[in-house]
């Protein structure tokens, strides 16, 4: 190929790696599915509203179909009754997908150490980022989005994640 004319293209051509392009695309367009159940969901509403404005981080396209989403935000207490629904929604999401456990209940069951409450959603789905707080402030939820963005830069781009994860509801 004759490269003598390459200068004519100027900066119309950028050379990069495929990984970098994919990362760039993914980190700026996380589409959250909000599995909002309780108090934390109210704080998520505040995160999405104009003052905290999650769209500054490219994650404002809230999808309520798991097929459209790649970021599962579990905001609120997940009870045993709710657990199979959470698992179904996670399974319906296409790869690649990330999960944020917002708040004490989703992370560990919180102070609901009783017969109703799942002691952390990581019994059911693999969690990438845990957010402390009961409920966390909107800034903390934004921080989780940024953490996911950082994390996905480091990860392999074209392999399935969490293949070794075993869910408590896998064999039922």
């Amino acid at each position, binding site marked *: 190929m004759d490269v003598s004319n390459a200068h004519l293209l100027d900066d119309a051509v950028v050379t990069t790696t495929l990984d970098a392009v994919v990362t760039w695309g993914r980190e700026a367009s996380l589409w959250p599915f909000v599995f909002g159940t*309780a108090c934390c969901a109210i*704080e998520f509403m*505040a995160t999405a509203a104009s003052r905290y404005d999650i769209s500054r981080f490219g994650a404002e396209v809230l999808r309520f179909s798991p097929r459209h989403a790649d970021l599962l935000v579990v905001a609120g207490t997940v*009870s045993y009754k709710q657990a199979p629904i959470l698992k179904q929604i996670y399974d319906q999401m296409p790869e690649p997908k990330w999960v944020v456990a917002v708040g004490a209940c989703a992370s560990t069951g919180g*102070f609901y150490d009783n017969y*109703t409450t799942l002691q952390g959603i990581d019994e059911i789905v693999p969690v990438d980022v845990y957010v402390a707080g009961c409920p966390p402030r909107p800034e903390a939820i934004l921080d989780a989005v940024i953490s996911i963005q950082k994390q996905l830069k480091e990860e392999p781009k074209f392999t399935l994640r969490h293949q070794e994860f075993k869910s408590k*509801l896998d064999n*039922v």
Partner: protein
Amino acid sequence: MSETQHINASELFGVIFQAKEQEGFSLLLDITAIDNLDKSHPTSTRFELVYILRHEDFKTLKIFKVSLADPLEGVESITSIYTSAEWAEREVYDQYGIHFKHHNTLKRILNHNEFEGHPLRKDYIITQGQYCTTSQDLMDEMQPLLEARCLDMKEDDLMIVNLGPSHPASHGTIRTLAALDGETIVAAAAEIGYLHRGFEKSCENHNYNQIIPYTDRLNYCSALMNNIAFSKTVEEMLEITLPDRGIFIRVILSELSRVIDHLVCLAAGLLDMGGQTNYWYLFNPRNNAYDFLSKLTGARLTNSYMRIGGMTHDLYEGWQDDLTDVLAKIDQGITDSLKMITHNRIYNDRIQNVSPVSADEALQYGFTGPNLRASGVAYDLRFSDPYYYYDTFDFQMVVGSVGDTYDRMMVRFDEMHESMKIIKQAMEQIPDGAINVSDKRIVMPSKDDVYGGIEGMMNQFKLVIDGVKVPKGEHYGAFEAANGELGFYIVSDGSGTPYKVKVRPPSFYHMAAYPKIIENYQVADAIMTLGSLNIIAGEMDR
């Protein structure tokens, strides 16, 4: 005014029928049970049923107690007297395993369908969780509904649509199954319990002040009100009254919470309808209110600011300016929002005459609060049985006429103005002085005393370890919360931990009526109706 009457299981139906038809107790507030298994609380039978009724003067209460020899034999269902008993009895069956004869759908309501045992029985271990693997199809409830309407899935070409429990317009975790003829709902059934977090069981192993953070998470849109309602009920059992400054702080914060609660309801309701700008206008001033609350209490949403006998600390210096600013912003938000909807045909046409509930029906369903007032029933505890000097404030009760979705929303808009009127008056009148009762058995000593002397240190130690000891007895305390009558039925055995706590959640009864009132309306209307009822799952499922 409340009166407790012990009756036999066999005469229950007759007595309650008479109370309603002849004595005018038109509102069934709640049904619950007490498990007397623990020996510290001995009675002749293991189970007792408790029926709480309210008179149509909205002041007098009547509590019927029934001793129950055999939970499997149970008692006669009163669903034919009060529609609201349907879900209330199901809950007692689910939590205590008490049977109700001639109840149409006596099945679990809060716990999942694979659950074994009855968690509020004293011999059920609190931490014994049970995994759930499947969901119900709810056709066991749908089929009788269709048969009653002489409908057939195939012949009438009906379609089943499942809304929720994870659905953007289901406001949390509510599931509705609707049978559709075209776009019209011909029958519907609802399933709740997805956010059942065992509040009542948790109360039985925490002391009174430890329960306050749990009450925050009942109705998390107006957490402070739940704090106040619970503390007020316990204080009534202790027969103590707060100093005036404490009462005024509670009034100010209650009314601010009511405004916040209504703002969330209306913002979300209008968002469901496509009016997204209203969401920004109503939601942003709410953030200003949260700034004020976090400055005061340290938390935005779940404040835990109240304690039995008062509150953790006094208002900070300069709070008046902050609160005045918040009120101005809220007022601006409401004005902006109303400008866009008052004469907006889309808004008015979409919700006027949708799912109207008549006054009689509303009482039958057990409605309280703004939803009942929208139906034209002038019931507000702040007027009918005033507490905390509510009779001295100049404000009005907002009452609707038709009880449709429009009324339910507009009553809330107007109530926010009334609440702000109360806040402004209370800000002017608030006296100086103590905020807590001065009783060492109830309120924590000052830190100077704790670190400065053995008496103060022991005082703190006893209060932390044993908690506030509440005299033996049973009491139902009611409070006009943002969504309606929030009641706590507390049974004390004299220790620092309640023997039993039952919440009377307004949303539970509103939700029970929901599948009935959306019938004959379209799916899009049902979404608006749900928004206007303001179902808060934390309070409904507890």
